């Protein structure tokens, strides 16, 4: 069994086919573009994490003693903007989706490979604008850019930040467009919609949101920019403008955006749970319909972010109703994952640990979402740490764990190497413990009344804040570990076989890593998805 030494002549794959920076920067290979995105979003994960670190350090003590109030406003603003727009939204779609979707459907590439590369360059342009914003003194609008604060009263880099996010929005629009057309037009013979892996369905639903929602964010930010620069007072109260109009437009996108930040993770979890239960996914049809339902219903709930902002009570009731509805398909998914596990042949490899973490933590986050969908409770907990805990349970406990699970699951395919399993398990455990220690106290803090976005707090909240910061430091170690051992594995990791997990799916029928064109011949699919009962292969890596 070869370990450290690379064989004398590696078979040709997408990594070694061409060398040199030009072959990467001018590539149209979806797999290389996925890796370009991986570099970009990993960088921003650490930038956003750095802001989080400063926030948690400040909150160790009740007094505002580490940074000034204005600086604190910048910290939480940029933490949110960077994590949402430059990490979470692209993470699974632009990295794992780009890499896997063509292979999973039996195609040689996405429908529009050059548009794919363009989307990465647009992402980099937005990144440059964001870095400029950060280095030029930051921005302190809150990630939500509410008017008239953003249009009238701040002198920080509001326009630059708005432009940065406007630009990266187009990156995700193009990715979504590419995925939709690819999944419709490029499936291999026999790969019917009902045979698609749920990862593909999840990214398809996500792409619907990209295409229909992001443009509204774009126009809302553009109008903020126009108001700041040219005094086009669309939201100016002095002209009779309604600040809530901005919030309607902003949240029309930003609520569905949170489904962008969970659906691909759900797709990943479906793949992992089926593989490591060695069993067909329970309720395929409902799972596929559920992601579509979540994407569609997710567009009908946005004003639940505005319950205390001044919208009419009757409108709030409508949005509250729809907010309850959207929980139903999410719950169906959780039940179906659980049913898949039942009587499965379960193995506790690292990806599965992340999937377990997802299922538990997403459920908690989702359930607290139901709490805040109730108008009465929401009035009490809006703008408190309860909300912060709620969405971090979903975005971090859910999506980030799913992303890491997916990275571990498909790492052998992407790199041709195995990551070290022992370290993988340790990191997963640290992340789980660190996460809960960081964010569970925040539910309590919020319920007790600690407001969000405040840089100082009442002394009775200190103990829980200290616990939260302690958790964050454990979480940080947990996140650093995969960085280190993934890099390590690229040179020293065990060489991966084509299908180390014994998993179903076309991607596992290609080499690890795949060749540039994925398939020498487009396969003809005659089997259903998750055909674990038919697979003859025994997993190589299991315990």
């Amino acid at each position, binding site marked *: 069994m070869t370990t450290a030494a690379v064989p004398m002549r590696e078979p040709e794959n997408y990594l070694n086919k061409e060398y040199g920076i030009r072959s990467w920067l001018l590539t149209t290979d979806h797999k290389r573009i996925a890796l370009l995105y991986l570099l970009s979003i990993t960088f921003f994960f650490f930038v956003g994490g750095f802001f989080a670190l400063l926030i948690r350090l400040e909150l160790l003590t009740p007094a505002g003693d580490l940074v000034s109030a204005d600086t604190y406003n910048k910290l939480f603003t940029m933490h949110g903007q960077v994590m949402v727009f430059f990490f979470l939204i692209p993470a699974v779609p632009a990295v794992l989706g780009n890499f896997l979707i063509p292979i999973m459907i039996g195609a040689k590439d996405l429908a529009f490979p050059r548009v794919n590369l363009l989307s990465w360059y647009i992402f980099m342009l937005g990144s440059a604008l964001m870095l400029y914003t950060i280095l030029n003194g930051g921005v302190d609008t809150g990630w939500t850019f509410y008017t008239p604060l953003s249009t009238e009263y701040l002198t920080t880099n509001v326009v630059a930040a708005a432009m940065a996010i406007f630009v990266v929005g187009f990156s995700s629009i193009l990715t979504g467009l590419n995925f939709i057309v690819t999944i*419709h037009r490029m499936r291999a013979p026999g790969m019917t919609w009902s045979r698609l892996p749920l990862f593909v369905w999840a990214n398809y639903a996500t792409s619907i949101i990209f295409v*229909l929602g992001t443009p*509204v964010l774009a126009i809302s930010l553009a109008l903020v920019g126009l108001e700041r620069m040219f005094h086009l007072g669309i939201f100016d109260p002095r002209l009779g403008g309604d600040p*809530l*109009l901005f919030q*309607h437009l902003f949240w*029309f996108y930003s609520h569905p955006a949170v489904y962008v930040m969970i659906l691909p993770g759900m797709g990943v979890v479906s793949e992992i749970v089926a593989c490591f239960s060695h069993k067909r996914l329970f309720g395929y049809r409902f799972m596929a319909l559920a992601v579509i339902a979540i994407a569609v219903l997710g*567009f*009908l709930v*946005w*004003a639940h972010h505005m319950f205390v902002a001044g*919208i*009419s*009570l*009757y*409108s709030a009731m*409508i*949005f509250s109703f729809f907010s309850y509805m959207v929980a139903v398909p999410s719950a169906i998914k959780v039940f179906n994952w659980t049913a898949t596990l039942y009587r499965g042949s379960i193995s506790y490899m690292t990806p599965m640990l992340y999937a377990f973490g997802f299922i538990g933590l997403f459920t908690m986050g989702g359930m607290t979402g139901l709490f805040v969908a109730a108008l009465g409770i929401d009035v009490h907990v809006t703008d408190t740490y309860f909300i912060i805990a709620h969405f971090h349970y979903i975005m971090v406990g859910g999506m980030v764990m799913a992303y890491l699970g997916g990275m571990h699951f498909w790492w052998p395919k992407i790199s041709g190497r195995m990551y070290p399993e022992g370290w993988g398990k340790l990191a997963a455990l640290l992340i789980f413990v660190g996460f809960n220690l960081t964010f569970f106290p925040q539910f309590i803090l919020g319920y007790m009344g600690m407001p969000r976005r405040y840089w100082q707090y009442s002394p009775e909240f200190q103990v829980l804040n200290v616990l939260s910061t302690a958790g964050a430091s454990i979480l940080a170690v947990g996140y650093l570990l995969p960085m280190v051992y993934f890099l390590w594995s690229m040179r020293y990791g065990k060489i991966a076989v084509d299908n180390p997990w014994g998993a179903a799916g076309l991607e596992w029928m290609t080499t690890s890593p795949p060749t540039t064109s994925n398939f020498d011949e487009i396969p003809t699919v005659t089997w259903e998805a998750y055909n674990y009962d038919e697979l003859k292969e025994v997993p190589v890596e299991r315990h």
Partner: protein
Amino acid sequence: MSEHIATKRTYILVWVSLMCLTAATAGVSYLELGRFNIVLALVIATCKAILVALIFMGVRYISQKMTLVVIVAGLFWFLILVSLSMTDYITRSWR
């Protein structure tokens, strides 16, 4: 390639209709119909848009049904944005 190629006559007829509808909408705007003005204006505009979409943009002859679904979805989503936002504005004055 089985694509449908329209005749010059078809395009010119559509163009004439569009110009007539434009004249109509301009003329009608001089009538004092109160709140009905906008309804009429939007109806005429929609007729023009449908003509452009069906004939100039070839929606009438599109081979893939999926593309029609895409177009309808786009229009429907715009309506979601407007109508759900309006639930707020229209009901703000209700007790």
